[in-house]
């Protein structure tokens, strides 16, 4: 038996899906988190009898006429895959809007069971819904549900109603199926009638004690948190607090224990190997595998704390307000207000962020958003941020916070450039977003989110990062004649000879050494590799000592080993954050852009942007700190001017295109 979960965006479909299947799919307290269908078997404990039920969670939709590509996933599924029953998740706090879609579902002839979700929120506001009358009027079962609690959540009753509904004929409460969809006037008239019908039902079944037009404390909070100007310093303060807690206080406290375990493992294996084992093999196992992977895994507690806090912010409804604050800036640069959602999702991982661009209807805006989303520092980049802010800067929190804001700034600059290149500088966009109500965040959900990211991080460390570090260690150990590289002659290794040409290009950025070039290149496989490769090439077992953020073994400070000035370190950090993302994210860009010109243009754009930002940071920073420009200023300036020249050329072409569109002569 197949059951489809359908409803408006942010009605709680995925939360209900997770509750009835036991899965831990990503949920978010805003519209547009789910963009693909997800399947799972409903828990046996909820089913009376032996029926096997497959639940399919579908992206949210406001109507059966799809307006965006994720909505078409929903309508296509129902039309092509014939589910046995539809569970229509209705947001009980917003009945009048939700029932428009419900009336359309009832016309499909497939049995519908309504899950009247978020019933607990209604009770808090003393809003009563007469479930029996609603069920009679819609001619389908209605069950009150609360997906976020374990007991008395109505889920057993819901599944029982689903089993009973199978095979029954579904009557349409409102019949608008006969409308000629090609006739706009007829469709509009039918929609108007449908709204009237819904309004009548709502007036019959709903009894509100608090009028929706009355100002509440939520509205007051919104006026401050979502304020056009005030919202930005508040967001900066919130992010600073998140980084302070995760990377200065709580994170390192737990990291200390983990690093101790990794050290213990390293020492234990070293003792087992003894003197009898070849130094090459011992080095691959100890420095390449345990040291390299350990250096990355050491940052796990910092990342877990950070994602726990971000999950709390998302769940309480704050991140949706950030989207509203950003909208006023984004629409001025030709982006959709919806673009902020993929970008915030991208702070976790760029891939789902890029996939979330499907919610954007306009093709140019969608492609631009997919291209710019990787500028937001994702979870994989956090170990790199944590390493550099810890090793080179005393106050770790401002470095991480500023990376987010520089990312946002680059997105705005990038969007300004792209809107001119594409010749759509006169395009205007409008963003309507339903703000979820503020609520106390679910600790359980934040813990699940944190653990799911930790699991993913460990899997990546144990697979891709382990393999990369092993290969890097081997390439560093041997030269092209497959002879072991002598001590002091590391420049003759395979790794050094491959990375050195790249290193030349990086001299104007302040980090033109092969070790750093190699780490940046392996970062394209997975960004955590930057940390792992640095650990391998500099022979550092782990980077974290919570007291001084210095090497645990040996007295040498990590910053001395890497040999960068603070300014060059900041430039290197930015280069790794703002050049193209990992290959998997580039694959996601390819899938969403569906255009090779956009894809390659996007990669070149990201590379140019990362190089330029890094160059400016290093050269201006060096000028300010030492009174003179850094090394290779002139060649770097020529390279950056060449990049700017290409961008200006394409912007002029776009300008011609835009003027032609406006009917002006040039």
């Amino acid at each position, binding site marked *: 038996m197949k059951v489809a979960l359908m409803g408006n965006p942010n009605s709680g479909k995925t939360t209900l899906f997770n509750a009835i299947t036991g899965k831990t799919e990503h949920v978010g307290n805003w519209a547009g988190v789910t963009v693909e269908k997800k399947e799972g078997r409903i828990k046996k404990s909820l089913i009376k009898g032996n029926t096997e039920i497959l639940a399919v969670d579908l992206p949210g939709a406001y109507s059966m006429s799809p307006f965006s590509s994720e909505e078409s996933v929903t309508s296509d599924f129902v039309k092509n895959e014939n589910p046995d029953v539809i569970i229509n998740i209705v947001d009980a706090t917003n009945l009048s809007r939700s029932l428009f879609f419900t009336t359309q579902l009832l016309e499909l002839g497939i049995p519908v069971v309504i899950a009247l979700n978020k019933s607990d929120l209604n009770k808090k506001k003393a809003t009563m819904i007469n479930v029996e009358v609603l069920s009679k009027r819609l001619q389908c079962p209605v069950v009150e549900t609360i997906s976020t609690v374990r007991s008395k959540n109505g889920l057993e009753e819901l599944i029982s109603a689903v089993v009973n509904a199978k095979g029954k004929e579904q009557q349409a409460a409102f019949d608008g199926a006969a409308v000629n969809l090609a006739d706009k006037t007829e469709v509009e008239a039918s929609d108007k009638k449908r709204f009237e019908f819904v309004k009548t039902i709502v007036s019959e079944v709903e009894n509100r004690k608090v009028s929706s037009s009355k100002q509440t404390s939520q509205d007051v909070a919104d006026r401050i948190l979502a304020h056009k100007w005030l919202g930005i310093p508040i967001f900066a303060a919130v992010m600073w607090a998140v980084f302070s807690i995760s990377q200065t206080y709580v994170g390192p406290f737990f990291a200390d224990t983990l690093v101790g375990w990794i050290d213990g493992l390293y020492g234990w294996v070293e003792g087992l*190997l003894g003197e009898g084992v070849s130094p090459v*093999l011992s080095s691959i196992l100890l420095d390449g595998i345990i040291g390299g992977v350990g250096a990355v895994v050491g940052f796990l507690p910092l990342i877990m704390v950070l994602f726990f806090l971000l999950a709390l912010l998302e769940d309480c409804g704050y991140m949706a307000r950030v989207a509203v604050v950003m909208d006023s800036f984004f629409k001025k640069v030709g982006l959709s207000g919806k673009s902020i959602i993929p970008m915030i999702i991208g702070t976790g991982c760029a*891939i789902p962020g890029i996939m979330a661009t499907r919610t954007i209807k306009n093709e140019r805006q*969608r492609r631009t958003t997919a291209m710019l989303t990787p500028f937001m520092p994702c979870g994989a980049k956090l170990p790199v941020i944590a390493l550099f802010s810890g090793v080179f800067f005393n106050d770790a929190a401002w470095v991480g916070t500023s990376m987010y804001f520089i990312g946002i700034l680059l997105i705005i600059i990038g969007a300004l450039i792209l809107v001119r290149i594409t010749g759509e500088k006169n395009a205007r966009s409008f963003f309507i977003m339903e703000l979820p109500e503020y609520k106390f965040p679910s600790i359980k959900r934040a813990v699940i989110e944190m653990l799911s990211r930790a699991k993913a991080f460990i899997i*990546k460390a144990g697979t891709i990062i382990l393999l990369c570090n092993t290969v890097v260690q081997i390439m560093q150990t041997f030269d092209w004649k497959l002879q072991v590289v002598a001590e002091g002659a590391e420049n003759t290794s395979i790794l050094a000879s491959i990375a050195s040409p790249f290193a030349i290009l990086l001299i104007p950025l302040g980090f033109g050494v092969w070790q750093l070039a190699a780490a940046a290149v392996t970062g394209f496989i997975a960004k955590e590799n930057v940390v792992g490769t640095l650990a391998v090439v500099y022979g550092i077992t782990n980077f974290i000592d919570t007291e001084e953020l210095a090497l645990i073994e040996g007295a040498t400070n990590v910053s001395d080993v890497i040999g960068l000035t603070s300014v060059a370190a900041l430039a290197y950090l930015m280069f790794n954050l703002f050049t193209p993302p990992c290959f998997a994210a580039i694959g996601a860009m390819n899938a969403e852009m569906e255009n090779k010109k956009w894809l390659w243009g996007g990669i070149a754009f990201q590379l140019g942007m990362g190089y330029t930002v890094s160059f400016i940071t290093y050269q201006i920073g060096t000028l300010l700190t030492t009174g003179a420009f850094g090394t290779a200023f002139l060649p770097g300036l020529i390279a950056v001017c060449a990049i700017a020249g290409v961008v200006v050329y394409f912007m002029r072409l776009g300008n011609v295109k835009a003027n032609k569109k406006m009917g002006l002569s040039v």
Partner: protein
Amino acid sequence: MGNIIVILIILAIVAVAIAKIVIEKRKGAKCIGCPHGGASNSRCSCNHSDNKSKG
């Protein structure tokens, strides 16, 4: 003998890592070890061309 054991251990660790990547790829994962970016279609399951608009 010690060297052979260490080689076997390294090979075993590397083989497990490769096997995990292959299994995940066969399951359709786009990215190994990416939270919520894993098991999904390699291409978008929707049809963008149906929704193209220039507005």
